[in-house]
């Protein structure tokens, strides 16, 4: 895969010279963003189908065979709907908020390694960049809530802001453990640090299992998904921060939410489940056979586990109460991560550290 990309790169450089670099970067950006958008569209269908099956009903099955054209129909509907700006709303910020929600969710993909050497930007402080990008997503939500000039939207925004800031701490500390174990903040090196002759037993999910759980729970809370979807609590505050949005503005918030979910799934895989590594590497003949499979396949296969988990959680758990949510974040997850940072740091000094 790398060889093919490099041939294309050299050919393009010969053809366009100095102008090639921006063109090549743009091509790479499109190659990452367009599949994410497609993934988001079909993830919504998967969500409705899986929720349907879990509740013993067929889910969408009218548009296209097995409902496969449903996302297209939804997209057309949202695009052609009227976009209403409420009176008394701050027009500029009201329009800017959905964009501010979506941009960080897509920008974070720049440092995610999709296959070996397959990152858009191989940044040294990649992990830090990711934390910075995921922490920016909250602006879209707060600004949307405030600019709508609506009580429900504002209450939703306040809830969401407090929730995201709280769970970011737990997330950050969980990643400190990963960075201790990998001794690098470069995403590619974090994945390479999990390479071993023991296949999936060499990944960080074994020594850092509590952190995997904490990271994923914090990820669910960060993306405002059930059971932590207090920001859009229908029974209490209508639809939360996007109450006043219609048409494409509403669609952008949904794109941002689902893009964030896919991002969290990808990051969990990169940090704890060896990213694009083959789970059977070094397992005799099975390992040699499966080594032929491209890394992108393993990456996507592992991501789909967590994407399914998001939906499973939504179908299974009732919504948290707000004080319980705050208690879980501050009194359970953060102390646990703090303890585990010390445990991992001490563990790594002993000969018992095998990773």
């Amino acid at each position, binding site marked *: 895969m790398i060889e093919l990309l490099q041939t294309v790169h050299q050919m393009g450089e010969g053809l366009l010279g100095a102008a090639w670099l921006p063109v090549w970067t743009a091509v790479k950006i499109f190659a990452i963003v367009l599949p994410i958008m497609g993934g988001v569209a079909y993830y919504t269908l998967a969500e409705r189908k899986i929720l349907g099956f879990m509740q013993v009903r067929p889910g969408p099955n009218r548009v296209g065979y097995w409902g496969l054209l449903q996302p297209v129909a939804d997209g057309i509907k949202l695009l052609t709907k009227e976009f209403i700006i409420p009176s008394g709303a701050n027009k500029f910020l009201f329009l800017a908020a959905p964009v501010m929600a979506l941009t960080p969710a897509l920008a974070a993909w720049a440092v995610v390694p999709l296959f070996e050497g397959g990152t858009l930007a191989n940044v040294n402080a990649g992990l830090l960049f990711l934390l910075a990008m995921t922490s920016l997503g909250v602006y879209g939500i707060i600004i949307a809530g*405030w600019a709508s000039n609506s009580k429900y939207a504002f209450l939703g925004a306040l809830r969401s802001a407090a929730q995201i800031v709280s769970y970011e701490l737990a997330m950050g500390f969980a990643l400190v453990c990963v960075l201790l174990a990998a001794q690098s903040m470069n995403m590619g090196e974090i994945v390479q640090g999990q390479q071993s002759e023991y296949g999936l037993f060499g990944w960080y999910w074994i020594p850092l299992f509590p952190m995997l759980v904490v990271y994923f729970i914090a990820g669910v809370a960060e993306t405002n998904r059930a059971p932590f979807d207090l920001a859009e609590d229908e029974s209490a505050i209508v639809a939360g921060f996007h109450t006043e949005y219609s048409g494409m503005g509403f669609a952008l918030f949904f794109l941002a939410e689902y893009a964030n979910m896919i991002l969290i799934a990808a990051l969990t895989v990169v940090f704890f489940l060896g990213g694009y590594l083959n789970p059977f590497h070094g397992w005799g003949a099975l390992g040699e056979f499966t080594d032929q499979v491209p890394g992108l396949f393993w990456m996507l296969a592992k991501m789909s586990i967590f994407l399914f988990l998001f939906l499973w959680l939504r179908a299974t758990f009732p919504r948290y109460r707000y004080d319980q949510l705050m208690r879980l974040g501050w009194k359970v997850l953060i102390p646990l991560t703090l303890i585990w940072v010390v445990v991992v740091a001490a563990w790594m000094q002993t000969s018992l550290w095998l990773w």
Partner: protein
Amino acid sequence: MNFETILFYFFAASAVFSALRVITARNPLHSVMFLVLAFVSSSGIWMLLEAEFLAIALVLVYVGAVMVLFLFVVMMLDINIEKLRKDFLQWLPAGALLATLIVVQMVWVLGDKAASTGMTAVKHAADYSNTKELGRLIYTDYVYPFELAAVLLLVAMVAAIALTFRRRRDSKRQDISWQVNVKRNDRVRIISMPATKKNEVSGADEAHAAD
């Protein structure tokens, strides 16, 4: 003029413009958003100086956490902008004086050829990790000042909480671990009742059963 210089001027201009808008914007929320822009611009300048750790930490800490809380507070406060505007000209001379003083000091320190070391900045290789270097310095050569600063911050935090925290005696609170650990027998009581025949049931119950 190479691409890096163009970037520097872009970030610098954006930082100065947004800093000015922070104090001139009519809406306090716009001021906060411009302050965010100022932070992001200065983070870009730091990135050009190859200080990627500081640049990203600035975005992570200030933009991602501190400014969110700022935004939170500004949204909920009822700020009378007209009243704030009225005193603007009155305090302008004092502010201008202070600003000039700072500029003079900066020019004095940074512009003095004799004070500068005479070294030009050397570009590092692409694999040079600024973060690792910074961590090594902080936790070896400067470990005592660093720990001292950390303790100072902790003391300030504890003091702020101790000064402002009021425990209300009459407030009702929930013990969540008690709620979670509740057993069925704490809430439900199962009573064994003898079965009754239909003609023993009273008239009111009969009417109820009919509908």
